[in-house]
């Protein structure tokens, strides 16, 4: 199995297309970091304008932790589209090239090949996320320094001490990996249905956009299906940055406000991954390879 995964990884990283996503993420993050470095004070003043009369905040609000949070909010919506570029091409791309028949005439079952391909696509996705984490968190910490993380939610503010922040990012990135692997498995499923790459790539992006709209609209009809849509759960990495308070309304260090919500989201995302990959295996096993 490992030899099949190595073959798939070799193919993924031999293609120039693979590096587009890494380049795009780097470019976006550098541009945002540069903008905030130059004009960060104005931006933080804008953020704080509603609470300046009631609250005085000391220290460096626009620090590396906040920059990372801002970047994740912006990018974790778009990274799935970059993931789709590779995941949705894994099977359909080979069908289009005609190389799928080369793979399926080797002495390994189709199930093993499909799993090897999914694992390779997942490794790519995780590497993309690590790259994002490195640039968004560690480079931001290096450029902007560190301090307590001050977040403004819709009707309250959260202040997390700086020594209580890093593990939350680790949790958020682990959660985000589940969210992105769900996208990988969706792209993979659509890829198994097609013999060209464009359809599954556009299809994956369309499903994400469509489901995201359903997840965000507060229309009663949609609220029935919302809990079952993976897009509803993809943004719950933010839960790692909601903190419990004691009776005196003081933050409890090391706490998370709604752990069950995170757990449910992880279960829903994992079930989606299993469902999508299993469906891909069934489809490929029954498929006549005509390309």
């Amino acid at each position, binding site marked *: 199995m490992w*030899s099949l995964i190595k073959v798939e990884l070799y193919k993924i990283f031999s293609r120039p297309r693979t590096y587009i996503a890494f380049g795009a993420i780097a470019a976006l993050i550098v541009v945002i970091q540069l903008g905030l470095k130059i004009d960060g004070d104005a931006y933080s003043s804008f953020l704080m304008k509603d609470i300046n009369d009631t609250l005085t905040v000391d220290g460096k609000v626009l620090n590396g932790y906040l920059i990372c949070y801002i970047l994740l909010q912006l990018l974790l919506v778009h990274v799935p589209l970059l993931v789709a570029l590779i995941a949705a091409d894994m099977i359909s791309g080979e069908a289009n090239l005609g190389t799928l028949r080369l793979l399926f*005439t080797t002495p390994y079952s189709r199930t093993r090949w499909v799993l090897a391909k999914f694992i390779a696509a997942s490794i790519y996705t995780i590497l993309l996320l690590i790259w994002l984490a490195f640039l968004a968190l560690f480079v931001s910490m290096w450029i902007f320094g560190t301090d307590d993380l001050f977040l403004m939610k819709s009707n309250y503010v959260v202040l997390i001490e700086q020594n209580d922040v890093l593990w939350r990012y680790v949790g958020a990135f682990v959660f985000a990996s589940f969210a992105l692997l769900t996208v990988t498995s969706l792209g993979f499923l659509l890829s198994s249905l097609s013999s060209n790459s464009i359809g599954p790539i556009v299809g994956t992006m369309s499903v994400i956009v469509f489901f995201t709209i359903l997840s965000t609209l507060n229309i009663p009809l949609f609220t029935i299906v919302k809990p079952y849509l993976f897009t509803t759960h993809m943004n719950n990495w933010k839960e790692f940055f909601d903190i419990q308070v004691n009776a005196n309304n003081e933050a409890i260090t090391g706490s998370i406000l709604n752990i069950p919500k995170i757990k449910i989201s992880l279960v829903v995302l994992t079930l989606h991954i299993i469902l999508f990959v299993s469906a891909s295996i069934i489809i490929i096993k029954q498929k*006549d390879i005509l390309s």
Partner: protein
Amino acid sequence: MFGLFCYYFMSVIKIQNISKHFGSLKAVDDLSFEVQAGQVFGFLGQNGSGKSTTIRMLLSLIHPTSGQIEIFGKRIEKDREAILEQVGAIIERPDLYPYLSAREHLELFAKVRKQKICEADINATLEKVGLAHRAKDKVQTFSLGMKQRLGIGIALVHNPSLIILDEPTNGLDPQGIADIRQLIQYLAKEEGKTVLVSSHLLSEIEQVAHQILIIHQGKKMVEGVTKELLDPEKRIVQIKTTDDANALKVIAASSFSNYLLPRSEGVYLKIPTREIPLLNESLVKAEVALLGIETKNSLEDYFLQITSNA
């Protein structure tokens, strides 16, 4: 010794009544044949006759609608992995990864074989298919012929006992075609491989195959030993005259009438080679305006004869 003896009398491929239907289309219809060990088996048919569909079923790329396939005495649907370990194949076009080099292709496909394939084996394969000098070049810079050679290299890199080559000379120049012919002969004679080769370049099959099978519209038309089917003692000849009707009348009234082949156009006979001069003499005597007598004894003529009668 006894094992080797048995091997050469064993059916490497045994296909029994396989059919493949795509909706209402019968791509392969109740086809049965066997390929013996150490044999070069020519699988012939026009484009769309069902050759590639049959080969894809042999390699379990396509699931048969009905019938049974045995390779090395094992059922393909049950022992697929064990069978494919000993099989090397190219199917139709040489589709490869344009961003990888020839060497990278062989290294990748060596990795997915269970036996150990070393650097020397890869170099030997590159030499065998004449790509050693372009080993490091990306496939996107290759001609169709070079891609075809690399496809054959991938099929050979793990030293399989059964080699299935679907249209292996597609896109090759005359020298390339001759090279592949030599390679097939070498693999069968020197290395004792069993080779199933399909082609529509019938002259190529004629020169390499011990046994041939012709299919048309998914059905078996004829099967047999190449030498017997192309009996050198009997040749198909076309009598070229300015008046075919008169020539037919003369031949029908002569002792050569039994040799006449029923054709809608032209005058064709299947005649012993030694009697061709006598035929010529009798036509001249009967004052038939003779333009020539053309021998039509290639496999291609035979193939056209069989399929046009179908």
